[in-house]
């Protein structure tokens, strides 16, 4: 197991380097100048001086110089005073990308993990109810809700929740971040597609598992349907959910920009979208590299958990 973890950790820098290069090329290919503001340009000579100031006149020099600063190599060899320095944001020159990451990441992670927790609770419950009584009214209802949860985009469900529970009922504050009351609605809105997916996975898993030989044996030996379901069927039905949880958590933590926008939550997803639209190269690189590192680590965590839960995988290796 430890050799497996070590091998995966050694792959991490390589993966991140590939992501760095790809992102860099893509963002550089976007036309326009990150320092250009809406509507007007400074005099051409001033613009050229600004580009030189930020080394934006030379992509190759920028690539290596920035790679050195970001990876910490420049710090190790002593040519830069800080390790893992993403530099100032090009669009928001008062903030370093590190500062932005440090304030935005905890918000996005909280939002994402909260959403996954809610998704697990809702998804498992409705999946079990539906899976144990396939074809029943409860199953149909749960299927319908799941379909809606998957199909409706976040800005629709988010806006509906906001209008209903905040604007009309005044149960929750509108917009901002600063406590549980601010967090609940965006977490629920963000959890919906995930709960729907989990519900469907569990439902399908339970239907399948209840027909397997070992569950039928358990039933034959006198266990109640409920006992057989919880003790034997659910364990196996949960496995696909577990493998889904890794990428899902990553997506929830990183892909919540729509929800963050609707609820005015100052998370990273929003900053990322703004960065892309404004060609804020340093901010985009910072967010992408952070996200890809999280993604790799979460996938690793799930793989480790999976081996622990299902010994067959370790044996197959």
């Amino acid at each position, binding site marked *: 197991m430890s050799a497996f973890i070590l091998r995966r950790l050694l792959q991490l820098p390589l993966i991140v380097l590939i992501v760095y290069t790809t992102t860099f090329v893509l963002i550089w290919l*976007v*036309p*326009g100048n990150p320092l250009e*503001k*809406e*509507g*007007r*340009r*400074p*005099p051409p*000579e*001033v*613009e050229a*001086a*600004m580009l*030189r*100031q*930020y080394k934006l006149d030379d992509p190759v020099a920028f690539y290596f110089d920035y790679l050195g600063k970001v990876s910490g190599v420049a710090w190790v060899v002593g040519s830069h005073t800080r390790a893992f320095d993403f530099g*100032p944001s090009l*669009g*928001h*020159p*008062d*903030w*370093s990308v590190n500062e*932005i990451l440090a*304030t935005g990441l*905890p*918000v996005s*992670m*909280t939002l994402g*993990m*909260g959403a*996954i*927790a809610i998704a*697990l609770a809702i998804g498992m419950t409705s999946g079990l109810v539906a899976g144990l009584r396939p074809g029943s009214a409860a199953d149909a209802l749960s299927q319908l809700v799941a379909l809606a949860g998957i199909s409706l985009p976040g800005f629709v469900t988010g*806006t509906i929740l*906001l209008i209903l529970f*905040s*604007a009309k009922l005044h149960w929750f504050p*509108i917009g*901002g*971040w*600063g*406590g549980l009351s601010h967090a609940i609605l965006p977490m629920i809105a963000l959890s919906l597609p995930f709960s729907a997916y989990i519900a469907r996975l569990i439902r399908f898993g339970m239907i399948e598992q209840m027909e397997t030989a070992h569950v039928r044996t358990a039933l034959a030996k006198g266990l109640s349907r409920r006992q057989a379901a919880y003790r034997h069927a*659910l364990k196996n039905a*949960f496995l696909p959910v*577990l493998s889904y*949880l890794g990428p899902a958590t990553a997506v929830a933590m990183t892909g919540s920009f729509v929800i963050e*926008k*609707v*609820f*005015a939550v*100052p998370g990273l997803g*929003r*900053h990322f979208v*703004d960065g892309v639209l404004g*060609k804020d190269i340093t901010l985009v690189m910072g967010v992408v590299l952070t996200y890809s590192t999280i993604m790799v680590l979460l996938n690793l965590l799930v793989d480790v*958990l999976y081996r622990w*839960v299902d010994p067959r995988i370790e044996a197959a290796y």
Partner: protein
Amino acid sequence: MSVRLTLTLLICSAIVGALVWTSGVTPINDLVWVGPDIFTLDPQKLSYQQDIRMEMALDETLVVREGVTAEPIPGAAREWEISADGREYRFRLRPDGKWSNGESVTAEDFRMAWMRAMLPDTAADYSGLFFVIDGARDFFFWREAQLAAFAANGGGDAQALWQQTLTRFDETVGVTAVDSLTLLVRLIQPTPFWLDQCGFAVTSPVHRATIERFSSLDARTGRYETDASWTKPGNRVSNGPYRLAAWRYKRDLLLEANEFYWNRESVQAKRVLMLPFEENNTAVLAYGAGGIDWIADVTVDYRADMAAQQRAGLRTDTHVLDAFGTDFFQFNCRPRLADGRVNPFSDRHVRRAFALAVNKQALVTQVTRMNESIAGALTPPGSIKGYTPPAGLPYDLTRAREELTTAGWSDHDGDGLVEDSAGNRFPVVDVLYTTGAVRYKNLALALREMWASALGVEVSLRSKDTKFFKEDLRTGNFMIARGGWYGDYGDPTTYLEFCRSTDGNNDRRYNDPAFDALLDQAAAERDPARRFALLQQAESKLVEEDLPLIPLCNFVQVYMYEPESLTGLTAHPRLEQYLGRVHRRDKSEPRDSSVSVTDSPEGAHQ
């Protein structure tokens, strides 16, 4: 089962921990408003309206352009003298001017700030604004060349170069601190709007000691670099109505009254909180739920309906204000198109025909539905004292067809489409607009209809994302494109200079030596009335003869606030709100405060 339990426990504890970590305090504020996100609080790097507004709350410029007329009145400078040749300005600072740390504001602080704006090291958008100062332009390019040489040599003595730079600034640039309270400015030529520019936020002073504390010389590039943390709460020192109490990235910004400000008595709201809600719909919902006094820019798709309700008397909180900007569509004036074809719009008769065929009134009432004031010229009428912009071209279909015929395009074969004498059809008109802006999509659709039916041409629409759109503008890959321009200062040249043939923002490549000559003549003219007459002549040429662009209407900004409970906002088109004046209304206070939006003489169209 234990897996699930462990996972759930882990996640729950992480959420609780993170919530405790990220939660903040909820203080009581005197004014809470929603505005666009702040980009920078470094006065010399400003560019956006919201940054300018925030800067004017933090710092005070030499003069202040306050009230309905926006006439310059004393600010950080108590008085000033202008020399007989109009080139020398002697500002005397007020002796009681103080920074938020209690230190006195000196002429050196202004000099430091203006030097920053003239250093390529700062990468300031508005460096060009200072180039009217004697020696400023040469200083900028001298420093830029020195830095380039420094970097090419692979480094050197950055300190020596910096000393050389300071000496050169002393010797060649027309900004002198005569004594601690006297600032002498020498311009390259008389510039009537210079005093107005001394009220522009970019000319704000900086606390010299703070800048020096946060600055260092980069050994490799030789550049003078100021660590961005100088603009953060605790570091940022300001000389205006407020000091920066808190600022969290894209979350909130808190101002507190500056107890050392000389005019502190005038500051009404002592604690001002700004929330940068990005999704405007959320801001409008939050306003409805209470707790927000003012939304500075309502951009929701349904704002036209809100404005209609306001006009019908169904609501009282939606205010449509004229802004200091003009919306237009622009022609590519290059002789050839990007693909090498001959450009029909290089002929001004064709451009005039297209301009005459636009029913602007219909556009503002039926398409944008905001009832903006329609524009014949670029300069918004009434926005610059003493200047009357030309009327521009009317909506006249007969004249439009005549112009097109004069240009050699008419319907010879009776198929409803115009051809040249050789029978070649008018090229399909390529109209470019930006994706994502419903306004421009609707305008482009309406214009296509107007042009196709009135002129007998085929029109195709093309939308591109902003970055790609700008690239097309730059390379001339369009026939007609959406445009728009906001003025910077109180003079018509702020609207005319960007049409000069050599200007970096002349995407149209409109090139008429006569127009440039008129601008030059006006620049040399000392008599204000004659100067305005020359500028009016130039603008007439632009919007009545040559038409590199079709002015459509004034830009508007929609404010949301309740006039019964909030006062102190000005309706002057520049919409540079002085936050120190804005406050919740005391019920005993009369409603006819001179700077209130709803009651101002210029009036907002309700």
